[in-house]
């Protein structure tokens, strides 16, 4: 399994993403806070370029004590990557689809050595 250089830790600001060509594969590397995550650029739905989609906070709909709703809101913690083909949304932290655990992104190995990031396909 070949290893590919994905840049330095300092190349990534919080919320950044870089898609890396790894031979026949592509891997998306994401930074959320001080954590890094790597996913194959292949949507669990139709193999679309999921890692090249928009990064967006998860949408939630708060329900009040009286069971009514008023606005949609963005989740303060959970950030999703949205497949640009069909809109499937996956947690960048877990790779799980927002609506169903049947759909998950394929994880890629990620290693940080001396401030350098490496991924394996």
């Amino acid at each position, binding site marked *: 399994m070949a290893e590919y250089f*994905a840049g330095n830790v300092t190349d990534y600001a919080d919320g950044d993403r870089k898609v890396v060509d790894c031979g026949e594969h592509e891997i998306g590397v994401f930074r959320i806070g001080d954590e890094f995550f790597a996913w194959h650029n292949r949507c669990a739905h*139709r193999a679309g370029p999921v890692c090249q989609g928009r990064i967006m906070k998860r949408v939630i709909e708060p329900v009040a004590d009286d069971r009514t709703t008023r606005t949609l809101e963005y989740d303060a913690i959970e950030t999703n990557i949205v497949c640009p083909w069909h809109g499937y949304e996956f947690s960048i932290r877990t790779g799980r689809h927002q609506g169903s655990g049947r759909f998950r992104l394929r994880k890629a190995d990620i290693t940080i050595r001396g401030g350098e990031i490496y991924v394996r396909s």
Partner: protein
Amino acid sequence: MNLQGRIGPPYSRVQEITVHTDTRDILAHARRNAIRRGLQDMFVVDIDAHHVETVSWKEIVTYIEDPVVRDNAIRFQNERLAAPPYGLNGDLGLRYQSVGGRIPHQDGQRETVEETGVHRDVMLTRRAMDSLGVDNMVVFPTPMLFLGMHPQPEMEVWLGNAYNRWLIDRVLADDDRIKSLIYLPFNTPREAERTVKELSGKKGVIGFCVTSTRNKPVHHNDYMRLYSMIEETNKPLAFHAGYHWQDASLATVNRFLGMHALGFVWCNMVHMTNWILNGIPERFPRLKTVWVESGLAWVPFLMQRLDDQFLMRPSEAPQLKRMPSEYMNTNCFYTTQPMETTHPKALENTLEMIKAETQLLFASDWPHFDFDLPQEICDLPFLSEQAKRNILGLNAARIFNLDPTPVKKLATT
């Protein structure tokens, strides 16, 4: 730092797909998967793709036949500040298909097209065909899908026919692979007949289209001469579905997800029910209808529903010599998209009831948010190899009289 570190990370050329991204980059994975599945050697027809005709509205209005309306439209497009498309009804800003920009290609294809020898829509369609793995692509308009609800029937005639003539001149003339099911101004039957008579023989016109969002009964006697004329051409008649926020039967639906899920099916369920129960297939046995962009799950539901009710009330549909479902899977054809795939057993049953091997036609609906790919047909485990080839293109070749020789350029573009 190893060697790779010294030469820099191999970042992909496209980091984020936006409304400016080239179709070939958006669909790079589709092309790769099409090659892997051997689509280069299969004849693939996409019966339902779209372009955004309102981008070219300034050109289209110059094709309006009525000289006064044409002049009014040209001045409107030239002089009115922030002019919307002249004369076009629709839902203005109620267009939420892209899920707030999450699916960029639905909002806009603002990519660079440097070739100037042909219309921009020709180039965009070529890029899509050679990325998806398609030999022939049928293009439909988009905002004009609402035109059947226009409060002025004559405006449907002027705009529908202007679009047809513009499309024939500017798009169909320049690429043999691009086809059209020409727009019929169905709310004015005599004018629809005129359209059939004048345009059915034009290059690239392989059939006719009724946009399904309309309140005209498809079984009305006013349409019998039109159906006779279409039957004589031996070209199919398509009912292209759509939604409509002003549909009173859907007035409580507040989410686009719900409106889209129901609206795109409901209109065709109503038309199909009237089509069958009024015996149109008995009256026009050689007339082939194609039911477009309603997905497939509605078909077995309606088959079961109509069959059960028909057996209890045959006196209300006395023209029928067979069960409603038998007309639905012999006289009628269906396009695949958006194919409901989350319940595989239900899909298998659906395709069996439809008689997919002979009645089903692949459609992508590119570039819309719920577009499908040819590879989805290749990957269905319960279909024979022949059935897959039929659905992907050979059924279309048969009913639209197309040359089934693959001409796409998957491997070289």
